[in-house]
């Protein structure tokens, strides 16, 4: 199964591209995608606890189920500003 994942901001810079294609026999949840990503790009390790995951442009979590053709995106929290 192939999944395309969009990366943004600092995560995009660390990985080095804005879209990565990940392959794995079976990817059922966002967690599987994340595990595949960090296996392929070890530099994202240590970043995982402060990332947001989206499926089809909606916020998701590691247990959110995915299927072929879904649009996945991973990125750091938005700036928040300072009030």
């Amino acid at each position, binding site marked *: 199964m192939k999944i395309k994942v969009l990366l943004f901001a600092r995560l995009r810079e660390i990985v080095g591209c804005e879209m990565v294609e990940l392959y794995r026999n079976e990817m059922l949840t966002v967690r599987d995608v994340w595990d595949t990503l960090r296996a392929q790009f070890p530099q994202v390790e240590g970043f995982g606890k402060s990332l947001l995951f989206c499926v089809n442009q909606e916020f998701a979590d590691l247990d959110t189920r995915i299927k072929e053709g879904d649009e996945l995106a991973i990125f750091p929290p938005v*700036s928040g500003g300072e009030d």
Partner: protein
Amino acid sequence: MRSYQQMETGDVYEIVRDAIHLDLLAKQLTQPQDGATLIFAGVVRNNTQGRRTLYLEYEGYEPMALRKMREIGETLKQRWAVNQVGIVHRLGRLEIGETSVGIVVTSAHRRTAFEACHFAIDTVKKIVPIWKKEFFEDGEIWVEGDFSQSPIL
């Protein structure tokens, strides 16, 4: 000068790469039944905690950002007696003093406009996937939010 694309409801949600014209946006949105128009401009500041900023770069996940901007506008119209909403965010390189995000809220009454507009910008800063990178004389930094306040928690 360009005009902003209004949806069927009259509201405006746009991502742009050039200057935001808030006067134009406010003029397009204000209707005869409005008594108050509130305009918020987020402006590129020349420093962060005293460190001198040269310029900023904004990057966005555009389709999702637009979707979230629309969601915020819809929430505003559900929760408050707001007549029209406009949210425009700029991406790319911005210089000091330029407007990165503009929000216009019109209402019959001013308290409504203040509350709704304040909620709108606070929520934009939390859930709209747009990030800024700040460039200093001696380096650069991605400005990231607090994960504990992230929208999935």
